């Protein structure tokens, strides 16, 4: 298996007036293609900073980050934007959908910025793959939390990125919707082999991944394989006696 993410000795230091605050103090890790990985840590541990760097939203103060063979650690803002567009799919805790915009238009937006053709078709396909083929023209106010997050996942997938980066994706969802989202991630990971990185502070969520990277005080202190990842789809059928989906 080849490494899709190679991070070597990344440091991120913020300057607050005279004081230097190291958010990341020498982090190294590698993630292979097709892995589903969790990055876990309490708040203030630096996991958000690490996630921002992995997602090319920020550049490290020192160290290297190689994404899919490209050294992105010293790229310009515009170059990073292109990388975010083509190689990374984001899923946020707060969904971050555009207000008053239809689902199909939300999902096609990354393709608009990349100048791709056949956008509508690709957007519809992506929406179908997350089970929202019936709601392509709904706006966020007409969708439940779980559905909104699924729109966000479809948007993250539409450019066929190398990695899917999810920051507390179930944080704003009830337990059933949350399980559905994790189930979608696991299915995508298994069926299309897309590399998934879940950033979370909940061990229960992390238990659904194949490897858990633990971070604290700006440093990685554990990097362990999960012996038996939990199966969210299975949990849905066992724990949810309502039957019938949203």
């Amino acid at each position, binding site marked *: 298996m080849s490494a899709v993410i190679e991070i070597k000795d990344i440091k991120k230091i913020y300057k607050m007036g005279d004081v230097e605050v190291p958010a990341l103090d020498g982090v190294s890790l590698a993630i292979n293609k097709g892995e589903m990985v969790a990055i876990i840590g309490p708040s203030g541990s630096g996991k958000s900073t690490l996630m921002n760097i992995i997602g090319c*939203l920020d550049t490290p103060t020192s160290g290297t980050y190689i994404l899919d063979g490209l050294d992105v650690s010293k790229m310009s803002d515009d170059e990073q*934007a292109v990388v*975010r567009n083509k190689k990374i799919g984001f899923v946020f805790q707060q969904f*971050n959908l555009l207000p008053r915009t239809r689902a199909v238009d939300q999902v096609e*937006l990354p393709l608009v*910025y990349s*100048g791709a053709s056949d956008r509508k078709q690709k957007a519809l396909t992506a929406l179908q793959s997350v089970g929202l083929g019936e709601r392509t023209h709904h706006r966020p106010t007409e969708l439940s939390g779980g559905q909104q997050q699924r729109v966000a996942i479809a948007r993250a997938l539409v450019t066929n990125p190398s990695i899917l980066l999810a920051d507390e994706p179930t944080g704003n969802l009830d337990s059933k919707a949350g399980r559905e989202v994790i189930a979608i991630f696991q299915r995508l990971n298994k069926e299309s082999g897309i590399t998934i990185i879940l950033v979370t502070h909940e061990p229960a969520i992390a238990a659904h991944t194949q490897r858990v990277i633990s971070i604290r005080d700006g440093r990685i202190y554990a990097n362990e394989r999960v012996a038996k990842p939990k199966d969210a789809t299975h949990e849905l059928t066992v724990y949810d006696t309502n039957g019938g989906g949203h």
Partner: protein
Amino acid sequence: MIIWQSVRIALQSIGANKLRSGLTMLGIIIGVMSVIAMLSIGRGMQNTVTAQISSIGTNLLFIRPGGTQQGGVRQQESAATLTLSDAEALASVPNVTSVAPEVDGFGQVAYLANNAVGRVIGVTPAYQDAMNANLASGDWVTAANVTTRAAVVILGSQIATNLFDAADPIGQTVRINGQNFRVIGVMAAKGGSGFNNTDTQIYVPITTAASRLTGNNRFRGGDVVNTINVRITDTSVQDSVVQDIGDVLRERHHITLQQDDFTIQSQQDILNTLNSITDGFTIFLGGLAGISLIVGGIGIMNIMLVSVTERTREIGIRKAIGARKRDILIQFLTEAMVLSLVGGLIGLAFGAMIARVISGINIGTTTLQTVVDVDAVMLAILFSLGVGLFFGIYPANRAASLHPIDALRYE
């Protein structure tokens, strides 16, 4: 790349918040509306003046006594330098169709209890053709009238109405400066304004004017006239005729080129001067109105700034999924320009409506005309787009410069 998308997004955003968009555009709407209305008044005025002047014909020269400047010393305007014989001599200059000398004064005309004041023009028979003086009824001054110094008068249409209402003035006797005159004709109404307005003038034989109204009883060859009007065949020969007239007059007055004691002015020159005056006036009016357009632009900038702040999160999302700085810049710039263009078009419509309403309103003796022409429309549209561009750049740049992480965190 995504200009069309940006326009769509801009329209969506504008429609989503109609009240805010409407209030933003208000400044531009009022600005463009005023500009269009002002320009239309200016242009209408110009057209009216031009038409009035052209109705007499542009192939007309006016010779007045007094040179403009002589050898560095400003010549005092001496009234005694153009004579009736000068006028007679000019009739044989090539390309001259008719020569009409005149003697001017002011008079009070009274009929029964009615009263009017107007310019009194002492004329010859040639005046009618030379000046396109159209009669509504009656006859013009004849050669016999001139020889006998007849006390006859032709009334301007406004004067006739003031004195006689609807009654027929022909044959009636009026008193001009206390002296009796018989009305032999009434001028056709011309409308318009300015002191060249024939409606408020009265015409008497030139000899009568000189003797009765200015006290010169022996008006003849050597006697002074105020103006000599010369109708020429065509404006194309204007320069050569002016040359020839100058030669004749200088020879008669025994002076050289440097010592001109007369001024020749053409209708065309007057037209050009008036046009440049009205142009200036129009630009001035337009400029004033343009100030409100600037204010409108400031309004747009303010609202765009607010809009950018409100949509900080949205900008962060767009950047996270791959929008580059220029994508965001184009989006917000397009919004600003669409806002101002739409505002401009609405203002244009209102401005045209105002112009239509104003047209036909009478102020004093003038009827306001308005003309909305293509130049004004193009100016208004380009200006609105320009305002949108100029005042939209700062907010758009602020939006484009937002850092995605901070923007995403914004509540």
